[in-house]
């Protein structure tokens, strides 16, 4: 009976979403207060209904109701309790339901925290979000119903994919989706502004914290995914330029550009049209990302569900959202986009460069990700685009961005003498170069990546500190949460660069066959294999190896890598053993047994690899801190220079 309740809740949510989309939008257009007033209660009702459906599905997993097809496919009576909760979003249907739930949470949050916005604005924003929810719920109900029955019920489920039976996977998808879906708020705002024909600095100021929070969650989600791949896939890599990863990276890049262009538009009134377009692009890329992963059109090192029946729906949905928004933009984009005038030497120009570089990088990733699809459609053969393409292009595009980064905060709006910021930062640039060269000669491998990583990181940190010092040195100038957030996020980039480039430049890795008692030498480390023994896990049989690690003959740690064979599907999983450290990770993964008492062993020494995720966490923190700036909470009409409401062609 319960699954049907979930089903009914979903259908009701679909109807409520339709109501939430249609009535307030028409009401706002025609000026009917009663119709506009429906937006808020509809948003709360939608949240309650989707949450109920999600709760029912979760209960199905916890109570092991194998008469629900989705539960039967993705769980098993041996599955530990905690994974029964997370199995809800372990596969296609459930993760779409999670998406819908998170959208309803964001919608409810917008409804709750928008009390001071004009009624038309909030009606339009919630209406657009309702339309998106309608599309998703329809997709769920008509093509991917999680409550589909399996009659007669089976006695035993097929089990959750062992790769997903992992703590990292518990929080990765929700965080990622919080980010993806969060971009629906600036998107809805952009559409509302286009419908209204006025782009007001106040509303823009109101959306900025939402964008920052969404971007922060997306950063965390991507970092968690990378961390999970690092320890769970057993290859020791942290980023593969894999289509699934690219799908989440594109909205991140577009979102980062959006953060900066929103700041310009809010403060100076410039780049209005561009900000709207970026908001549309960011959310469209989030949708594209969700669907690329879900539709299974891409070949990835990770696996997908593939069901051609869903393809058409996805295509139509994407077509309506992207095509519709762009048509709306073309018809009603602000005609006067100039805002306050600015010189070539100004902070506006630097932020423009930031936006151009970030969006070019995003386009580059998009092209590389979709190129195999295009080639296939045009019958040019089955191809894949290799990581060197992405790595090279990304490096080329990010180098100028990093070079220009510290100049942004110390350059004035509108006009600046070129010599001033240059003189301010030049000594620190020289310092960064010296430290970089020193690092190059101090590390044994002498890789250019070490030079580049350290140079870039020191340049960003001291350049940003120079800005902080300027603010504090001049009495009476406040240091806002927005500035603190920016400083933290920029430090995060520096930390990330150290991690990424030093790991790439200095990592050592070997794959060897070892017998019990034999050692593998790797730089100054030696890994001694002390044998493996079999044991019984809750839903798997494991081989647990013992590896003692020595540094210059002094024992450092004992690691226990594992190989697990899951009883339900016979899948084999590698559980790498890692000794984490501030300046290096020691990483051991077992391959296959090679007969006798010998095993294949993969050992890595990965310097500074933790800094990659540390940097990402700092970036996330930066986004969250920025969102708390008191300025965003103010809604009285304090008009900035050219930030007044602008009439548009319509």
């Amino acid at each position, binding site marked *: 009976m319960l699954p049907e309740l979930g089903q009914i809740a979903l259908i009701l949510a679909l109807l409520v979403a339709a109501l939430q989309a249609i009535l307030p939008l028409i009401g706002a257009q025609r000026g009917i207060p009663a119709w506009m007033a429906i937006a808020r209660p509809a948003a709360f009702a939608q949240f309650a209904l989707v949450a109920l459906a999600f709760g029912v599905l979760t209960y199905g997993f916890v109570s092991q109701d194998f008469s629900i097809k989705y539960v039967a496919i993705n769980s098993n009576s041996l599955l530990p309790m905690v994974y029964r909760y997370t199995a809800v979003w372990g596969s296609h249907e459930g993760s779409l339901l999670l998406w819908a739930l998170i959208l309803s949470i964001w919608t409810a949050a917008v409804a709750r925290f928008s009390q001071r916005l004009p009624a038309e604005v909030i009606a339009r924003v919630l209406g657009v979000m309702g339309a998106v929810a309608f599309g998703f719920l329809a997709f769920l109900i008509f093509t991917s119903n999680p409550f589909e029955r399996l009659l007669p019920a089976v006695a035993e489920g097929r089990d959750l994919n062992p790769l997903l039976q992992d703590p990292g996977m518990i929080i990765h998808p929700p965080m990622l989706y919080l980010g993806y879906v969060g971009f629906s708020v600036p998107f809805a705002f952009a559409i509302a502004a286009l419908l209204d024909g006025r782009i007001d600095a106040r509303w823009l100021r109101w959306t900025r914290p939402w964008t920052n929070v969404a971007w922060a969650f997306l950063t965390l989600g991507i970092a968690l995914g990378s961390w999970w*791949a690092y320890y769970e896939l057993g290859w020791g890599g942290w980023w593969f330029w894999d289509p699934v990863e690219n799908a989440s990276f594109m909205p991140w890049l577009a979102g980062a550009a959006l953060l900066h262009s929103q700041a310009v538009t809010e403060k100076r009134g410039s780049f209005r049209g561009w900000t709207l377009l970026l908001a549309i692009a960011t959310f469209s890329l989030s949708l594209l990302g969700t669907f690329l992963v879900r539709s299974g059109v891409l070949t990835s090192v990770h696996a997908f569900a593939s069901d051609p029946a869903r393809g058409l729906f996805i295509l139509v949905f994407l077509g309506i959202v992207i095509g519709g928004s762009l048509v709306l933009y073309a018809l009603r984009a602000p005609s006067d986009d100039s805002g306050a005038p600015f010189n070539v030497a100004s902070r506006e120009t630097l932020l423009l460069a930031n936006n151009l570089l970030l969006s070019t990088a995003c386009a580059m990733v998009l092209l590389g990700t979709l190129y195999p699809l295009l080639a296939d459609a045009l019958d040019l053969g*089955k191809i894949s685009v290799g990581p060197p393409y992405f790595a090279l292009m990304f490096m080329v595009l990010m180098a100028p961005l990093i070079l220009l980064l510290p100049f942004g905060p110390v350059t004035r709006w509108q006009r600046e003498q070129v010599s001033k910021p240059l003189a301010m930062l030049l000594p620190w640039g020289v310092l960064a170069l010296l430290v970089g060269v020193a690092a190059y000669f101090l590390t044994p491998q002498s890789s250019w990546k070490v030079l580049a990583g350290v140079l870039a990181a020191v340049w960003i940190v001291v350049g940003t500190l120079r800005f902080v010092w300027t603010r504090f040195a001049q009495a009476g100038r406040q240091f806002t949460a927005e500035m603190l957030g920016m400083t933290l996020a920029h430090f995060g980039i520096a930390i990330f660069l150290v991690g990424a480039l030093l790991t790439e430049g200095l990592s050592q890795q070997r794959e060897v066959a070892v017998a019990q008692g034999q050692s593998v030498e790797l730089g100054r480390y030696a890994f001694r294999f002390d044998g493996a023994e079999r044991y019984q896990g809750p839903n798997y049989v494991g081989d647990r190896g013992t590896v003692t690690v020595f540094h210059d003959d002094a024992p450092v740690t004992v690691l226990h890598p594992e190989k697990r064979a899951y009883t339900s599907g016979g899948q084999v999983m590698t559980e790498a053993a890692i000794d984490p450290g501030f300046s290096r990770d020691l990483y051991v993964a077992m391959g296959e047994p090679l*007969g006798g008492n010998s095993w294949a062993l993969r050992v890595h020494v990965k310097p500074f690899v933790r800094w990659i995720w540390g940097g990402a966490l700092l970036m996330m923190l930066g986004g969250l801190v920025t969102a708390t700036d008191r300025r965003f909470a103010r809604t009285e009409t304090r008009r900035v220079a050219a930030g007044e409401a602008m009439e548009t062609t319509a």
Partner: protein
Amino acid sequence: MNPIRRNRLIWIAALVAAAGIAAAMITYAIQRNITYLFTPSEVLRGETGAHARFRLGGMVSANSFQRAQGSLEAHFRVTDGDAEMPVVYTGILPDLFREKQAVIATGRMEGNHFVAEQVLAKHDETYMPKEVADKMGMAHKKHDVEIQAAAPVAETR
């Protein structure tokens, strides 16, 4: 031409130039970094042409996997139903590598062997990489073999 127009023209010219350079670089970088997928019969028919490095896709033939005791050098054959190709790979194979399952190996031909530098196996019991399935589907159609439908399966990320 008034200064505003001239300014705009300069901007547009710069943008077009930048876009052109970017497009040229991207095309060049993609062209250098794409790898094509071929099945064993296509390789034997010589369709790989100028692509020295490519991906070989198909199933691991039954009873073809061999590994000398205590060594990481693995030998196996990849089949598409029509033809087989011997493959050599030195290193740890992915967890899901098994006989009679789909693999994609990246590498190059050396003599009549395919020497793989990377081997990817499918991530699920019933799933086959779509591009391999497409190609093998064609082979099967030719031979009138029933293809097992891919059931919807779990996704990893």
